[in-house]
Protein backbone atom coordinates (compact mmCIF):
# COMPACT_ATOMS: atom_id res chain seq x y z
CA UNK A 1 0.00 0.00 0.00
CA UNK A 2 2.50 2.56 1.14
CA UNK A 3 5.76 2.61 -0.68
CA UNK A 4 8.93 2.33 1.34
CA UNK A 5 10.82 5.58 1.91
CA UNK A 6 13.50 6.19 -0.67
CA UNK A 7 17.15 6.28 0.24
CA UNK A 8 18.71 9.59 1.21
CA UNK A 9 20.72 11.42 -1.36
CA UNK A 10 24.47 10.87 -1.50
CA UNK A 11 25.72 13.26 1.22
CA UNK A 12 28.35 14.85 -0.99
CA UNK A 13 25.83 15.47 -3.74
CA UNK A 14 23.36 16.90 -1.23
CA UNK A 15 26.16 19.03 0.19
CA UNK A 16 27.10 20.30 -3.25
CA UNK A 17 23.48 21.15 -3.93
CA UNK A 18 23.19 22.92 -0.58
CA UNK A 19 26.41 24.82 -1.23
CA UNK A 20 25.12 25.85 -4.62
CA UNK A 21 21.90 27.17 -3.06
CA UNK A 22 23.97 29.08 -0.51
CA UNK A 23 26.26 30.50 -3.18
CA UNK A 24 23.28 31.60 -5.28
CA UNK A 25 21.75 33.24 -2.21
CA UNK A 26 24.91 35.18 -1.48
CA UNK A 27 25.37 36.17 -5.13
CA UNK A 28 21.79 37.38 -5.51
CA UNK A 29 21.04 38.88 -2.11
CA UNK A 30 24.46 39.47 -0.58
CA UNK A 31 23.52 37.53 2.55
CA UNK A 32 23.53 33.92 3.62
CA UNK A 33 20.86 31.50 4.74
CA UNK A 34 19.37 31.33 8.21
CA UNK A 35 16.70 29.82 10.39
CA UNK A 36 16.63 30.99 13.99
CA UNK A 37 15.98 34.61 12.97
CA UNK A 38 12.61 33.59 11.56
CA UNK A 39 11.63 31.91 14.83
CA UNK A 40 12.60 35.12 16.60
CA UNK A 41 10.31 37.07 14.28
CA UNK A 42 7.43 34.82 15.30
CA UNK A 43 8.26 35.27 18.97
CA UNK A 44 8.36 39.05 18.63
CA UNK A 45 5.09 39.04 16.68
CA UNK A 46 3.45 36.83 19.29
CA UNK A 47 4.49 39.10 22.14
CA UNK A 48 3.34 42.18 20.24
CA UNK A 49 -0.04 40.57 19.69
CA UNK A 50 -0.55 39.01 23.10
CA UNK A 51 1.02 41.69 25.25
CA UNK A 52 1.11 44.95 23.25
CA UNK A 53 1.57 46.97 26.43
CA UNK A 54 4.70 45.05 27.36
CA UNK A 55 6.09 45.24 23.83
CA UNK A 56 5.56 48.99 23.71
CA UNK A 57 7.56 49.59 26.86
CA UNK A 58 10.44 47.12 26.51
CA UNK A 59 13.56 48.32 24.75
CA UNK A 60 14.20 45.16 22.77
CA UNK A 61 10.78 45.17 21.10
CA UNK A 62 11.01 48.91 20.45
CA UNK A 63 14.32 48.42 18.66
CA UNK A 64 12.84 45.52 16.69
CA UNK A 65 9.93 47.70 15.64
CA UNK A 66 12.25 50.46 14.51
CA UNK A 67 14.26 48.01 12.43
CA UNK A 68 11.18 46.36 10.98
CA UNK A 69 8.53 49.03 10.61
CA UNK A 70 6.30 46.74 8.53
CA UNK A 71 6.00 44.24 11.36
CA UNK A 72 8.36 41.46 12.43
CA UNK A 73 6.93 38.95 9.99
CA UNK A 74 7.88 40.96 6.95
CA UNK A 75 11.48 39.90 7.13
CA UNK A 76 13.67 38.07 4.66
CA UNK A 77 14.26 35.10 6.93
CA UNK A 78 10.56 34.53 7.57
CA UNK A 79 9.99 34.20 3.83
CA UNK A 80 13.05 32.02 3.51
CA UNK A 81 11.82 29.65 6.22
CA UNK A 82 8.39 29.49 4.55
CA UNK A 83 10.37 28.29 1.54
CA UNK A 84 12.25 25.78 3.70
CA UNK A 85 8.95 24.31 4.91
CA UNK A 86 7.65 24.02 1.34
CA UNK A 87 10.92 22.61 0.01
CA UNK A 88 11.34 20.09 2.83
CA UNK A 89 7.74 18.96 2.52
CA UNK A 90 8.03 18.50 -1.25
CA UNK A 91 11.25 16.58 -0.81
CA UNK A 92 9.69 14.33 1.84
CA UNK A 93 6.66 13.74 -0.38
CA UNK A 94 8.64 12.70 -3.43
CA UNK A 95 10.76 10.39 -1.29
CA UNK A 96 7.82 8.90 0.66
CA UNK A 97 9.11 10.21 3.94
CA UNK A 98 6.08 12.10 5.25
CA UNK A 99 4.99 10.33 8.42
CA UNK A 100 3.56 11.72 11.62
CA UNK A 101 5.82 10.22 14.26
CA UNK A 102 8.25 10.84 17.04
CA UNK A 103 11.79 9.87 16.21
CA UNK A 104 14.00 8.97 19.13
CA UNK A 105 16.81 6.78 20.37
CA UNK A 106 16.09 3.12 21.15
CA UNK A 107 14.15 2.59 24.39
CA UNK A 108 13.50 6.28 24.99
CA UNK A 109 9.98 7.17 26.13
CA UNK A 110 7.97 9.58 23.99
CA UNK A 111 7.55 12.01 26.88
CA UNK A 112 11.28 12.07 27.51
CA UNK A 113 12.04 12.66 23.86
CA UNK A 114 9.58 15.54 23.58
CA UNK A 115 10.79 17.13 26.82
CA UNK A 116 14.40 16.81 25.63
CA UNK A 117 13.50 18.31 22.24
CA UNK A 118 11.80 21.28 23.89
CA UNK A 119 14.65 21.80 26.34
CA UNK A 120 17.32 21.36 23.65
CA UNK A 121 15.37 23.70 21.41
CA UNK A 122 15.26 26.30 24.17
CA UNK A 123 19.03 26.11 24.65
CA UNK A 124 19.61 26.32 20.92
CA UNK A 125 17.21 29.24 20.56
CA UNK A 126 18.86 31.12 23.39
CA UNK A 127 22.37 30.41 22.13
CA UNK A 128 21.52 31.39 18.57
CA UNK A 129 20.49 34.84 19.70
CA UNK A 130 23.63 35.27 21.73
CA UNK A 131 25.90 34.15 18.89
CA UNK A 132 23.88 36.12 16.30
CA UNK A 133 23.01 33.04 14.32
CA UNK A 134 22.56 29.30 14.44
CA UNK A 135 24.09 26.44 12.49
CA UNK A 136 22.70 27.90 9.27
CA UNK A 137 23.17 31.63 9.77
CA UNK A 138 26.41 31.66 11.73
CA UNK A 139 28.18 28.36 11.12
CA UNK A 140 27.35 27.47 7.51
CA UNK A 141 26.90 30.94 6.02
CA UNK A 142 29.74 32.27 8.16
CA UNK A 143 32.05 29.56 6.89
CA UNK A 144 31.11 30.31 3.28
CA UNK A 145 32.06 33.98 3.60
CA UNK A 146 35.06 33.02 5.78
CA UNK A 147 33.90 34.97 8.80
CA UNK A 148 36.09 34.36 11.82
CA UNK A 149 33.14 34.63 14.21
CA UNK A 150 31.07 32.19 12.17
CA UNK A 151 33.82 29.59 12.19
CA UNK A 152 34.42 30.07 15.96
CA UNK A 153 30.71 29.55 16.59
CA UNK A 154 30.72 26.44 14.41
CA UNK A 155 33.61 24.94 16.36
CA UNK A 156 31.93 25.83 19.67
CA UNK A 157 28.66 24.15 18.65
CA UNK A 158 30.20 20.91 17.45
CA UNK A 159 32.89 20.88 20.13
CA UNK A 160 30.33 21.21 22.92
CA UNK A 161 28.03 18.62 21.36
CA UNK A 162 30.92 16.13 21.24
CA UNK A 163 31.93 16.95 24.79
CA UNK A 164 28.41 16.32 26.06
CA UNK A 165 27.67 13.30 23.87
CA UNK A 166 28.80 10.79 26.47
CA UNK A 167 26.53 12.25 29.16
CA UNK A 168 23.45 12.11 26.99
CA UNK A 169 24.16 8.78 25.33
CA UNK A 170 21.07 7.26 26.91
CA UNK A 171 18.93 9.58 24.80
CA UNK A 172 20.40 8.16 21.61
CA UNK A 173 22.31 4.88 21.80
CA UNK A 174 21.35 3.31 25.11
CA UNK A 175 20.42 -0.11 23.81
CA UNK A 176 22.53 -1.03 20.87
CA UNK A 177 20.20 -2.91 18.56
Amino acid at each position, binding site marked *: MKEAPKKYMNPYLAGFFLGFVLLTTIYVTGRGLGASGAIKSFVVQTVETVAPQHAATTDYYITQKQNNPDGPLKSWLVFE*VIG*VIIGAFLSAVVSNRVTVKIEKGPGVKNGVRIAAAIFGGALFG*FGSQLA*RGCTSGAALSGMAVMSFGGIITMMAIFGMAYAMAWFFRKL*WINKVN
Partner: protein
Amino acid sequence: MGPLVPDIISNEFNFIIAIIVGMGFGFALEQAGFGSTRKLVGLFYGYDFTVLKVFFTAGVTAMVGITALNHLELLDVDIIFINPTFLWAAIIGGVIMGGGFIIGGFCPGTSVVAAASGKIDGWAFVFGAGLGIFAFVEGYPLIKDLMVAENLGDLLVFEMMGISREAFALIMVFVATGAFIGVTIIENKVNNRATRWLKSDITKYSIGIGIAVVIVLTTMITPTRAELMNQRIDEKLASGECHPQLMEEDKLAYELMHQYYQFNVIDVRSAEEYKKFHIPTAINIPLEELHKAENISLIVQNIKTNVFYGASFEQAQRACLVSKYHGKADNYALNSTADEFNSNFFMLSDVQPDNKLDNETYIFRKEAAQKLKEIGEAVANLNKPVIKKAKRVQGGCS
Protein backbone atom coordinates in the same frame (compact mmCIF):
# COMPACT_ATOMS: atom_id res chain seq x y z
CA MET B 1 27.86 43.10 -10.42
CA GLY B 2 26.71 40.94 -7.56
CA PRO B 3 25.06 41.03 -5.15
CA LEU B 4 22.04 41.74 -7.34
CA VAL B 5 19.94 43.14 -4.49
CA PRO B 6 19.13 46.04 -4.25
CA ASP B 7 20.40 47.54 -7.53
CA ILE B 8 19.26 44.93 -10.02
CA ILE B 9 16.62 43.13 -7.97
CA SER B 10 14.42 45.28 -5.74
CA ASN B 11 14.10 44.75 -2.03
CA GLU B 12 10.46 43.78 -2.43
CA PHE B 13 11.20 41.08 -4.97
CA ASN B 14 13.91 39.88 -2.63
CA PHE B 15 11.14 38.31 -0.53
CA ILE B 16 10.17 36.13 -3.47
CA ILE B 17 13.83 35.19 -3.88
CA ALA B 18 13.81 34.27 -0.18
CA ILE B 19 11.01 31.77 -0.73
CA ILE B 20 12.75 30.27 -3.76
CA VAL B 21 16.15 29.83 -2.13
CA GLY B 22 14.40 28.66 1.04
CA MET B 23 12.77 25.91 -1.00
CA GLY B 24 16.16 24.87 -2.33
CA PHE B 25 17.57 24.95 1.19
CA GLY B 26 14.73 22.87 2.63
CA PHE B 27 14.85 20.42 -0.24
CA ALA B 28 18.60 19.92 0.11
CA LEU B 29 18.40 19.44 3.87
CA GLU B 30 15.56 16.92 3.64
CA GLN B 31 17.23 14.97 0.85
CA ALA B 32 20.41 14.82 2.88
CA GLY B 33 18.48 13.24 5.74
CA PHE B 34 18.56 16.24 8.06
CA GLY B 35 14.89 15.76 8.89
CA SER B 36 15.88 12.71 10.90
CA THR B 37 17.17 13.37 14.37
CA ARG B 38 18.98 10.04 14.66
CA LYS B 39 20.88 10.74 11.48
CA LEU B 40 21.90 14.14 12.83
CA VAL B 41 23.22 12.98 16.20
CA GLY B 42 24.97 10.04 14.53
CA LEU B 43 27.80 12.51 14.04
CA PHE B 44 28.43 12.62 17.78
CA TYR B 45 28.40 8.86 18.31
CA GLY B 46 30.27 7.96 15.17
CA TYR B 47 27.62 5.82 13.51
CA ASP B 48 26.62 8.35 10.84
CA PHE B 49 28.73 11.26 9.63
CA THR B 50 26.25 12.56 7.10
CA VAL B 51 26.08 15.96 8.82
CA LEU B 52 29.79 16.52 8.53
CA LYS B 53 29.91 15.37 4.92
CA VAL B 54 27.00 17.54 3.84
CA PHE B 55 28.00 20.52 5.91
CA PHE B 56 31.62 20.55 4.82
CA THR B 57 30.82 19.95 1.16
CA ALA B 58 28.28 22.77 1.22
CA GLY B 59 30.60 25.18 2.99
CA VAL B 60 33.54 24.45 0.72
CA THR B 61 31.40 24.61 -2.43
CA ALA B 62 30.08 28.05 -1.47
CA MET B 63 33.55 29.17 -0.41
CA VAL B 64 35.17 28.15 -3.68
CA GLY B 65 32.28 29.71 -5.60
CA ILE B 66 32.62 33.02 -3.78
CA THR B 67 36.38 33.01 -4.34
CA ALA B 68 35.88 32.45 -8.07
CA LEU B 69 33.11 35.06 -8.42
CA ASN B 70 35.23 37.55 -6.51
CA HIS B 71 38.17 36.88 -8.80
CA LEU B 72 36.03 37.43 -11.88
CA GLU B 73 34.76 40.66 -10.29
CA LEU B 74 31.21 39.35 -10.53
CA LEU B 75 30.64 39.57 -6.80
CA ASP B 76 31.76 42.41 -4.58
CA VAL B 77 32.93 40.67 -1.41
CA ASP B 78 33.37 44.03 0.27
CA ILE B 79 29.64 44.50 0.54
CA ILE B 80 28.26 41.01 1.16
CA PHE B 81 27.22 40.28 4.72
CA ILE B 82 30.07 39.05 6.87
CA ASN B 83 28.97 37.74 10.25
CA PRO B 84 30.56 40.17 12.68
CA THR B 85 32.80 38.68 15.32
CA PHE B 86 31.86 39.36 18.92
CA LEU B 87 34.24 36.86 20.41
CA TRP B 88 32.62 35.99 23.73
CA ALA B 89 29.08 35.95 22.42
CA ALA B 90 30.20 33.73 19.53
CA ILE B 91 31.90 31.21 21.81
CA ILE B 92 29.38 31.12 24.68
CA GLY B 93 26.43 31.16 22.28
CA GLY B 94 28.03 28.31 20.35
CA VAL B 95 28.63 26.28 23.51
CA ILE B 96 25.00 26.70 24.60
CA MET B 97 23.87 25.69 21.11
CA GLY B 98 26.11 22.62 21.25
CA GLY B 99 24.33 21.52 24.43
CA GLY B 100 20.99 22.13 22.76
CA PHE B 101 22.10 20.06 19.79
CA ILE B 102 22.97 16.91 21.74
CA ILE B 103 19.92 17.14 24.02
CA GLY B 104 17.34 18.21 21.45
CA GLY B 105 18.78 16.37 18.47
CA PHE B 106 18.25 19.19 16.00
CA CYS B 107 19.34 22.68 15.12
CA PRO B 108 16.73 25.31 14.20
CA GLY B 109 16.95 24.76 10.44
CA THR B 110 16.79 20.98 10.64
CA SER B 111 13.95 21.07 13.18
CA VAL B 112 11.89 23.05 10.67
CA VAL B 113 12.68 20.41 8.05
CA ALA B 114 11.69 17.62 10.46
CA ALA B 115 8.48 19.44 11.37
CA ALA B 116 7.62 19.90 7.68
CA SER B 117 7.94 16.15 7.10
CA GLY B 118 5.66 15.33 10.04
CA LYS B 119 8.06 14.67 12.91
CA ILE B 120 6.46 15.64 16.20
CA ASP B 121 9.84 15.95 17.87
CA GLY B 122 10.70 18.52 15.20
CA TRP B 123 7.68 20.59 16.20
CA ALA B 124 8.68 20.27 19.86
CA PHE B 125 12.16 21.56 19.07
CA VAL B 126 10.80 24.54 17.11
CA PHE B 127 8.50 25.33 20.03
CA GLY B 128 11.41 25.04 22.44
CA ALA B 129 13.54 27.32 20.28
CA GLY B 130 10.75 29.87 20.48
CA LEU B 131 10.81 29.61 24.28
CA GLY B 132 14.59 30.01 24.36
CA ILE B 133 14.46 33.07 22.13
CA PHE B 134 11.68 34.50 24.29
CA ALA B 135 13.86 34.00 27.36
CA PHE B 136 16.72 35.72 25.58
CA VAL B 137 14.59 38.69 24.54
CA GLU B 138 13.15 39.15 28.02
CA GLY B 139 16.53 38.75 29.63
CA TYR B 140 18.27 40.96 27.10
CA PRO B 141 19.11 43.80 29.53
CA LEU B 142 21.13 41.30 31.58
CA ILE B 143 22.98 39.85 28.57
CA LYS B 144 23.54 43.07 26.68
CA ASP B 145 27.09 43.62 27.90
CA LEU B 146 28.17 40.11 26.98
CA MET B 147 26.54 40.52 23.58
CA VAL B 148 28.80 43.40 22.54
CA ALA B 149 31.98 42.43 24.38
CA GLU B 150 35.21 41.88 22.43
CA ASN B 151 33.92 43.25 19.14
CA LEU B 152 36.40 42.33 16.41
CA GLY B 153 34.19 43.61 13.58
CA ASP B 154 33.86 41.95 10.19
CA LEU B 155 36.94 39.83 10.76
CA LEU B 156 37.83 37.32 8.07
CA VAL B 157 39.55 34.13 9.05
CA PHE B 158 42.21 34.26 6.35
CA GLU B 159 43.14 37.82 7.34
CA MET B 160 43.51 36.55 10.86
CA MET B 161 45.86 33.82 9.62
CA GLY B 162 47.71 36.24 7.39
CA ILE B 163 47.08 34.35 4.17
CA SER B 164 45.06 35.10 1.03
CA ARG B 165 41.43 34.21 0.48
CA GLU B 166 42.46 31.80 -2.25
CA ALA B 167 45.03 30.03 -0.10
CA PHE B 168 42.47 29.54 2.66
CA ALA B 169 39.94 28.13 0.20
CA LEU B 170 42.57 25.69 -1.06
CA ILE B 171 43.46 24.62 2.48
CA MET B 172 39.78 24.03 3.25
CA VAL B 173 39.39 21.82 0.18
CA PHE B 174 42.18 19.60 1.45
CA VAL B 175 40.98 19.68 5.07
CA ALA B 176 37.52 18.64 3.92
CA THR B 177 38.95 15.82 1.80
CA GLY B 178 41.00 14.55 4.72
CA ALA B 179 37.99 14.74 7.02
CA PHE B 180 35.84 12.79 4.55
CA ILE B 181 38.36 9.98 4.37
CA GLY B 182 38.79 9.94 8.14
CA VAL B 183 35.11 9.85 9.02
CA THR B 184 34.40 7.16 6.47
CA ILE B 185 36.91 4.91 8.21
CA ILE B 186 35.48 5.73 11.68
CA GLU B 187 31.92 5.27 10.49
CA ASN B 188 32.68 1.81 9.12
CA LYS B 189 34.52 0.80 12.28
CA VAL B 190 31.63 1.87 14.54
CA ASN B 191 29.16 0.02 12.35
CA ASN B 192 31.40 -3.05 12.07
CA ARG B 193 31.71 -2.76 8.34
CA ALA B 194 34.83 -3.31 6.34
CA THR B 195 36.18 -0.20 4.68
CA ARG B 196 36.44 -0.79 0.98
CA TRP B 197 37.62 1.83 -1.47
CA LEU B 198 35.82 1.17 -4.72
CA LYS B 199 37.66 2.29 -7.78
CA SER B 200 34.58 3.91 -9.26
CA ASP B 201 34.00 5.92 -6.08
CA ILE B 202 37.59 7.09 -5.94
CA THR B 203 37.42 8.27 -9.53
CA LYS B 204 34.11 10.03 -8.94
CA TYR B 205 35.20 11.90 -5.84
CA SER B 206 38.64 12.70 -7.21
CA ILE B 207 37.00 14.46 -10.12
CA GLY B 208 34.88 16.57 -7.75
CA ILE B 209 37.81 17.49 -5.55
CA GLY B 210 39.99 18.05 -8.62
CA ILE B 211 37.52 20.54 -10.06
CA ALA B 212 37.51 22.52 -6.81
CA VAL B 213 41.31 22.53 -6.67
CA VAL B 214 41.61 23.60 -10.30
CA ILE B 215 39.14 26.46 -9.79
CA VAL B 216 41.02 27.77 -6.77
CA LEU B 217 44.42 27.36 -8.42
CA THR B 218 43.15 29.20 -11.49
CA THR B 219 42.09 32.14 -9.34
CA MET B 220 45.55 32.13 -7.79
CA ILE B 221 47.44 32.04 -11.04
CA THR B 222 45.42 34.19 -13.40
CA PRO B 223 45.28 37.95 -12.91
CA THR B 224 42.01 39.72 -12.18
CA ARG B 225 40.64 42.14 -14.75
CA ALA B 226 42.03 45.07 -12.78
CA GLU B 227 45.47 43.45 -12.61
CA LEU B 228 45.33 42.72 -16.30
CA MET B 229 44.43 46.32 -17.04
CA ASN B 230 47.27 47.65 -14.91
CA GLN B 231 49.65 45.22 -16.54
CA ARG B 232 48.69 46.42 -20.03
CA ILE B 233 49.01 50.02 -18.97
CA ASP B 234 52.40 49.37 -17.43
CA GLU B 235 53.55 47.77 -20.66
CA LYS B 236 52.40 50.76 -22.67
CA LEU B 237 54.04 53.19 -20.30
CA ALA B 238 57.28 51.25 -20.36
CA SER B 239 57.42 51.09 -24.14
CA GLY B 240 56.70 54.81 -24.27
CA GLU B 241 54.34 54.38 -27.18
CA CYS B 242 51.44 55.94 -25.45
CA HIS B 243 51.30 59.56 -24.48
CA PRO B 244 48.06 61.06 -23.35
CA GLN B 245 47.08 64.42 -24.69
CA LEU B 246 48.23 67.13 -22.37
CA MET B 247 46.42 70.19 -21.19
CA GLU B 248 48.16 73.25 -19.83
CA GLU B 249 46.79 74.72 -16.67
CA ASP B 250 46.06 78.11 -18.22
CA LYS B 251 44.23 76.43 -21.05
CA LEU B 252 42.11 74.48 -18.58
CA ALA B 253 41.33 77.61 -16.59
CA TYR B 254 40.34 79.41 -19.78
CA GLU B 255 38.12 76.56 -20.94
CA LEU B 256 36.46 76.23 -17.56
CA MET B 257 35.78 79.95 -17.42
CA HIS B 258 34.05 79.90 -20.75
CA GLN B 259 32.56 76.47 -21.18
CA TYR B 260 32.97 74.43 -18.06
CA TYR B 261 29.99 72.28 -19.06
CA GLN B 262 32.04 70.70 -21.83
CA PHE B 263 34.62 69.32 -19.46
CA ASN B 264 34.55 66.51 -17.02
CA VAL B 265 37.35 67.35 -14.63
CA ILE B 266 38.34 64.38 -12.51
CA ASP B 267 40.48 64.52 -9.43
CA VAL B 268 42.08 61.09 -8.98
CA ARG B 269 43.60 61.73 -5.57
CA SER B 270 42.17 60.44 -2.31
CA ALA B 271 38.96 61.82 -0.87
CA GLU B 272 40.85 63.67 1.89
CA GLU B 273 43.14 65.43 -0.55
CA TYR B 274 40.15 66.30 -2.68
CA LYS B 275 38.41 67.78 0.31
CA LYS B 276 41.35 70.04 1.12
CA PHE B 277 41.59 71.47 -2.37
CA HIS B 278 40.23 70.67 -5.77
CA ILE B 279 39.88 72.51 -9.03
CA PRO B 280 36.36 73.97 -9.17
CA THR B 281 33.84 71.70 -10.99
CA ALA B 282 36.09 68.64 -10.50
CA ILE B 283 34.65 65.40 -9.27
CA ASN B 284 36.64 62.95 -7.20
CA ILE B 285 37.35 59.35 -8.16
CA PRO B 286 40.48 57.91 -6.55
CA LEU B 287 42.74 56.26 -9.11
CA GLU B 288 42.48 52.82 -7.50
CA GLU B 289 38.71 52.92 -7.86
CA LEU B 290 38.57 54.35 -11.34
CA HIS B 291 38.20 50.98 -13.05
CA LYS B 292 35.12 49.99 -11.05
CA ALA B 293 31.94 49.68 -13.04
CA GLU B 294 30.07 52.48 -11.30
CA ASN B 295 32.93 54.90 -11.98
CA ILE B 296 33.57 53.85 -15.54
CA SER B 297 30.04 54.95 -16.39
CA LEU B 298 30.99 58.45 -15.18
CA ILE B 299 34.07 58.77 -17.35
CA VAL B 300 33.07 56.90 -20.48
CA GLN B 301 30.43 59.18 -21.98
CA ASN B 302 30.08 61.02 -25.27
CA ILE B 303 29.29 64.52 -24.15
CA LYS B 304 32.20 65.83 -22.16
CA THR B 305 35.94 65.79 -22.51
CA ASN B 306 37.75 64.20 -19.59
CA VAL B 307 40.52 66.10 -17.90
CA PHE B 308 42.38 64.15 -15.25
CA TYR B 309 44.69 65.54 -12.63
CA GLY B 310 46.28 64.13 -9.53
CA ALA B 311 48.97 64.57 -6.95
CA SER B 312 51.55 63.90 -9.63
CA PHE B 313 51.57 63.98 -13.40
CA GLU B 314 52.01 60.20 -13.43
CA GLN B 315 48.69 59.78 -11.66
CA ALA B 316 46.89 61.89 -14.22
CA GLN B 317 48.59 60.06 -17.05
CA ARG B 318 47.64 56.71 -15.63
CA ALA B 319 44.06 57.78 -15.12
CA CYS B 320 43.96 58.82 -18.78
CA LEU B 321 45.13 55.39 -19.81
CA VAL B 322 42.54 53.69 -17.62
CA SER B 323 39.86 55.77 -19.26
CA LYS B 324 41.24 54.99 -22.69
CA TYR B 325 41.45 51.30 -21.83
CA HIS B 326 37.75 51.35 -21.15
CA GLY B 327 36.97 53.00 -24.45
CA LYS B 328 36.91 56.74 -23.92
CA ALA B 329 38.98 58.48 -26.58
CA ASP B 330 38.69 62.10 -25.51
CA ASN B 331 41.01 62.33 -22.51
CA TYR B 332 43.44 64.93 -21.32
CA ALA B 333 45.95 64.82 -18.53
CA LEU B 334 46.56 68.10 -16.81
CA ASN B 335 50.15 69.15 -17.21
CA SER B 336 50.45 70.24 -13.61
CA THR B 337 49.60 68.73 -10.29
CA ALA B 338 46.77 69.70 -8.00
CA ASP B 339 49.13 71.58 -5.72
CA GLU B 340 50.72 73.49 -8.56
CA PHE B 341 47.32 74.51 -9.83
CA ASN B 342 46.37 75.64 -6.38
CA SER B 343 49.42 77.79 -5.86
CA ASN B 344 49.50 79.16 -9.41
CA PHE B 345 45.91 80.31 -9.32
CA PHE B 346 44.48 80.53 -5.88
CA MET B 347 47.52 81.46 -3.86
CA LEU B 348 48.83 84.31 -5.96
CA SER B 349 50.05 87.24 -3.94
CA ASP B 350 48.18 90.47 -4.28
CA VAL B 351 51.00 92.26 -5.98
CA GLN B 352 52.63 91.03 -9.12
CA PRO B 353 56.00 89.53 -8.21
CA ASP B 354 58.73 91.06 -10.29
CA ASN B 355 60.13 88.44 -12.55
CA LYS B 356 58.19 85.25 -12.06
CA LEU B 357 55.24 85.87 -14.33
CA ASP B 358 54.55 88.28 -17.07
CA ASN B 359 51.88 90.77 -16.33
CA GLU B 360 49.29 89.35 -18.69
CA THR B 361 49.40 85.89 -17.17
CA TYR B 362 49.25 87.30 -13.70
CA ILE B 363 46.09 89.28 -14.45
CA PHE B 364 44.52 86.33 -16.25
CA ARG B 365 45.17 83.97 -13.40
CA LYS B 366 43.84 86.40 -10.84
CA GLU B 367 40.66 86.75 -12.83
CA ALA B 368 40.41 83.05 -13.48
CA ALA B 369 40.72 82.22 -9.81
CA GLN B 370 37.85 84.56 -9.03
CA LYS B 371 35.67 83.29 -11.85
CA LEU B 372 36.40 79.61 -11.20
CA LYS B 373 35.51 80.05 -7.58
CA GLU B 374 32.15 81.47 -8.58
CA ILE B 375 31.49 78.72 -11.12
CA GLY B 376 32.62 76.11 -8.63
CA GLU B 377 30.20 77.35 -6.03
CA ALA B 378 27.37 77.62 -8.53
CA VAL B 379 27.76 74.12 -9.94
CA ALA B 380 28.58 72.50 -6.63
CA ASN B 381 24.95 72.65 -5.74
CA LEU B 382 23.31 71.51 -8.93
CA ASN B 383 26.00 69.23 -10.15
CA LYS B 384 27.08 67.23 -7.15
CA PRO B 385 28.71 64.01 -8.25
CA VAL B 386 26.35 61.19 -7.52
CA ILE B 387 27.96 59.38 -4.65
CA LYS B 388 27.14 55.80 -5.27
CA LYS B 389 28.44 53.83 -2.38
CA ALA B 390 27.33 50.26 -2.06
CA LYS B 391 26.24 49.61 1.50
CA ARG B 392 27.05 46.36 3.22
CA VAL B 393 24.15 43.95 3.17
CA GLN B 394 22.41 43.19 6.44
CA GLY B 395 22.02 39.53 7.21
CA GLY B 396 22.54 36.95 9.86
CA CYS B 397 20.10 35.37 12.19
CA SER B 398 19.64 37.90 14.92
